[in-house]
């Protein structure tokens, strides 16, 4: 992943939040998994959502993507390229499907059907993406042959090219080795600084939260607390959530 160094986040842009949730409630199998959540994610910030298992973090992200029905309101406000990147917690595609990394990445990067070949332009971009996530030269490897960490890098590469205006990440560090987690953090901070990307991310990694978060929300069905990393981490509820 990117080794570039970046300064602090750019000054916040004026205007409405990049994502605004208003009294969002989600029920599954008759059980309320997210209850009346109101949250504002400011543009150009890295906003982390933390909480124990079953707290509704991934469900909330899925609702922002429009993949889960909810009550309440979710508003997104775009001022740039409007591109949304998403790194899922799990990638459940059939691992025996014969699709190479290059073909997977080409799906969103060329109009020509991927089964008929990859264009020269897409091939060049794919090479750059793979270099950026530390998988240079692995274009022809099949997705099903990748380790968990390698697959995670491919998904991250797919989500950050082109630099998205909004990046949603559901525990993107899962399966990555410590160095790769640091590189991921640098990539996210770089996107925020260089492209003004807004990041909404679920994480359990206390060190990562302290390294990159502008804002942290502790979620346990309801919003328990929102503030800076120092404000939210350290109290008993956060300790339980991250233990």
């Amino acid at each position, binding site marked *: 992943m990117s080794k570039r160094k970046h300064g602090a986040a750019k000054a916040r842009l004026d205007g409405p939040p990049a994502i605004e949730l208003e009294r969002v409630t989600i029920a599954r199998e008759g059980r309320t998994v997210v209850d009346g959540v109101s949250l504002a994610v400011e543009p150009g910030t890295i906003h982390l959502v933390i909480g124990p298992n079953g707290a509704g973090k991934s469900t909330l992200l899925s609702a922002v*993507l429009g*993949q889960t029905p909810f009550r309440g309101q979710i508003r997104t406000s775009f001022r740039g390229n409007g591109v949304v990147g998403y790194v*899922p917690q799990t990638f459940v595609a059939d691992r*025996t*499907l*014969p*699709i*190479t990394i290059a073909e997977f990445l080409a799906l*969103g990067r060329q109009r020509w059907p991927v089964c008929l070949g990859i264009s020269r332009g897409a091939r060049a971009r794919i090479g750059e993406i793979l270099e950026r996530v530390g998988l240079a030269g692995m274009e022809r490897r099949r997705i099903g042959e990748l380790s968990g960490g390698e697959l995670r890098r491919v998904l991250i590469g797919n989500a950050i090219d082109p630099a998205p205006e909004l990046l949603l990440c559901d525990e993107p560090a899962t399966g990555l080795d410590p160095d790769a987690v640091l590189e991921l953090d640098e990539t996210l901070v770089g996107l925020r600084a260089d492209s003004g990307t807004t990041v909404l991310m679920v994480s359990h990694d206390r060190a990562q939260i302290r390294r990159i978060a502008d804002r942290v929300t502790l979620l346990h069905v309801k919003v328990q607390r929102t503030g800076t990393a120092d404000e939210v981490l350290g109290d008993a509820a956060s300790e339980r959530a991250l233990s």
Partner: protein
Amino acid sequence: MSWTYAWWIDFSRAVGLPEAFQYDFVARGVVAILMLAPLLGGLSHLVVARRLAFFSTTLGQAALTGLTIGVAVGVPLEDTYVSILGFCLLVGVVMAFIRRHSRLPADTVIGVFMAFTLGLGICVLVAATRSFNVHQIEAVMFGSLLTITDRDLVLLLVLGTLVGAAVAWAYNTILADSLSPPIAAARGAPTTMIEYGFVVIVTVAITVSLKVIGALLVEAMVVVPAAAARNLARSTRGYLVWSIAIAALAGLGGLFISTAWRVPTGGAIVLALSVCFFVTLPVGRLLR
């Protein structure tokens, strides 16, 4: 339309094939197979990627029910495409809707529809046979070369071209949505439209294939080429090429078996497809 298959008659004479292979209906069958192979073979790898194999079986059964409904209400047997397509579309779209909105597993929902379409088909069939001979619909159940007309070839050409163009236009989005709907949705793919649109595409492809392969066996042509191709392919491109090649090889092989031994075309094609699958299993292991 005879120009599309006259070449086969000339070719079979030139290479000295038995006289049975020089008849017009066999030539029409060859052309139909050559049009169906890219259509169904090309679709098959997407059907398998979207885990719709069981779904296509149900559509084949719904086609039989659509046919019997058409015949029961007085539509001539050769004009039942509309009732087949209409009933299959209804079943396919309702099935997709319930699959999306039900808490039940997808295969359970599909199983319910499979039972429903078969039960309805049998009841209507019994009622309809009071006014016509049940053997008339054998061709649609099991596929028959004898019933393929020039009009069927035109329909296959036109609808096959439209389906092929639609799939080519939306291929990357369909495949991305098959791999991960949330990632596709994040990139702006209309996932709901893709789901229903693909159901319509598969339904049309199955409907135009019925006369050659048969309603009860069409699912094999939609699933087995991709299953066999998966044993050999190392990339999406290889997957497509192998799927089409296996569909064409098994289709022509089955047609020759059907002509030479006078067995139903659909059954012979499915046997040929099965042979391809079992041959590719060890070959695929050797290639790894």
